[in-house]
């Protein structure tokens, strides 16, 4: 596919690997924030090809993995109501809640539908006027505009039995939380390409300056990733800490203006719980009062009735980059993709699953 396959060219991959090997003189820890990038690095076996002194740290960039367990409990609860159709992205349905996952709720009779798009859920609502359709809207800035769009689309079509159970997370506050941590040892960041395609680079300049870390925006293909790693290493070796765009075909300085308008039409910034990390102020998006009629958590007055299960999971340390999955005592033993203890083992973008599945 155009704009995709050419960035997998083996010769270019080898060439960039060689460049990185030559350029990296000191030990560096680089975090890819985005789970999609983790997935690509691991699936393409690139971690084993980087020089030993360039260590990639897998950040909290999988929206499925950071969705709080209490919200999964709520989705499960909703799906089991007789008149609710609970729609979700495929990755979300296996994530364990306190009682069960959505897949298990489905097995118990919950009407759970796996969709490719939140807009599809609006069509399902239109086709099932006697049901309340709830889309379990998780995501980073990339997905938030599309989820917002679903509400606007439902409103436009006069579909009133549609709502979002929303759990949106924002990248810059998470990066800041990680950087603020006194034990933080990350030297540079790969910027999340598709988040930046929406948001632009504006939020990253102050971060790079304040914490003196290079942030190189990267795409998802092997060449994209290696190019960005190479440029991060170049900055680090030369003591720079710029925001640099190495994904120019998709990312503009200003981002996507219309997408941001749509997002802020429906959502506003609020505090958000990250699974494995905890509450981070101003790190999420909540549905505005104007759209409360489309907010499942208000329509249903959801109670959070389950205490979080105590768990051996060290997801927090993994997501903050202190530990690698294989340093978790449960990894590959009590915790495997068929029986995940923590969210990072569930989604194929989760750091633990990416390690387990491709190493």
């Amino acid at each position, binding site marked *: 596919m155009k704009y995709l396959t*050419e960035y997998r060219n083996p*010769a270019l991959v080898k060439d960039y690997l060689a460049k990185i090997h030559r350029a990296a003189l000191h030990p560096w820890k680089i975090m890819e924030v985005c789970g999609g990038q983790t997935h690509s690095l691991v699936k393409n076996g690139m971690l084993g090809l980087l020089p030993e002194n360039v260590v990639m740290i897998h950040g909290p960039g999988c929206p499925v993995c950071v969705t709080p367990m209490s919200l999964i409990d709520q989705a499960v609860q909703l799906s089991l109501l007789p008149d609710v159709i609970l729609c979700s*992205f495929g990755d979300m349905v296996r994530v364990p809640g306190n009682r069960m996952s959505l897949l298990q709720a489905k097995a118990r009779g919950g009407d759970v539908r796996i969709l490719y798009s939140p807009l*599809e859920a609006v069509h399902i609502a239109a086709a099932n006027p006697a049901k309340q359709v709830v889309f379990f809207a998780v995501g*980073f800035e*990339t997905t938030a505009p*599309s989820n917002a769009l679903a509400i606007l689309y439902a409103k436009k079509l006069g579909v009133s039995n549609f709502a979002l159970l929303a759990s949106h997370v924002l990248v810059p506050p998470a990066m800041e939380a990680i950087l603020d941590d006194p034990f933080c040892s990350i030297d540079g960041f790969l910027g999340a390409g598709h*988040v930046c395609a929406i948001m632009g680079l504006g939020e990253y300049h102050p971060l790079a300056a304040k914490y003196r870390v290079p942030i190189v925006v990267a795409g998802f293909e092997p060449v994209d990733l290696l190019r960005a790693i190479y440029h991060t290493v170049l900055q680090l070796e030369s003591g720079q800490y710029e925001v640099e765009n190495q994904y120019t075909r998709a990312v503009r300085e200003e981002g996507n203006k219309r*997408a941001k308008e749509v997002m802020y039409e429906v959502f506003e910034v609020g505090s958000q719980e990250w699974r494995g990390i905890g509450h981070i102020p101003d790190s999420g998006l909540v549905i505005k009062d104007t759209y409360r009629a489309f907010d499942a958590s208000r329509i249903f007055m959801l109670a959070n009735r389950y205490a979080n299960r105590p768990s051996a999971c060290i997801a927090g340390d993994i997501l903050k980059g202190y530990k690698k999955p294989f340093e978790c005592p449960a990894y590959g033993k009590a915790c495997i993709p068929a029986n995940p203890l923590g969210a990072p083992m569930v989604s194929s973008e989760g750091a633990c699953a990416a390690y387990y599945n491709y190493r």
Partner: protein
Amino acid sequence: MCLAIPGKLAAITSQLDDVFRIGRVSFEGITKDVNLALVPDARVGDYVLVHVGAAISIINAEEAARTMDALRLMGEDLNLESDADE
């Protein structure tokens, strides 16, 4: 996160209003009807990045060409033609 794939906008299939346009996007053999509300400037023939049923960005063809030129230059001895063209 945020799996998004580039495809070529082949046709506008419906237009609810100025904002809500639906377009058929082609992924070389595969097509998908995609919401274009987030990319008001997208025209037929443009490549757009598609994520969860919506186009979230228009591929900057100039920038892509520039990148490819740089890559070609860098790997002059390498065969980079294969998949690069439509």
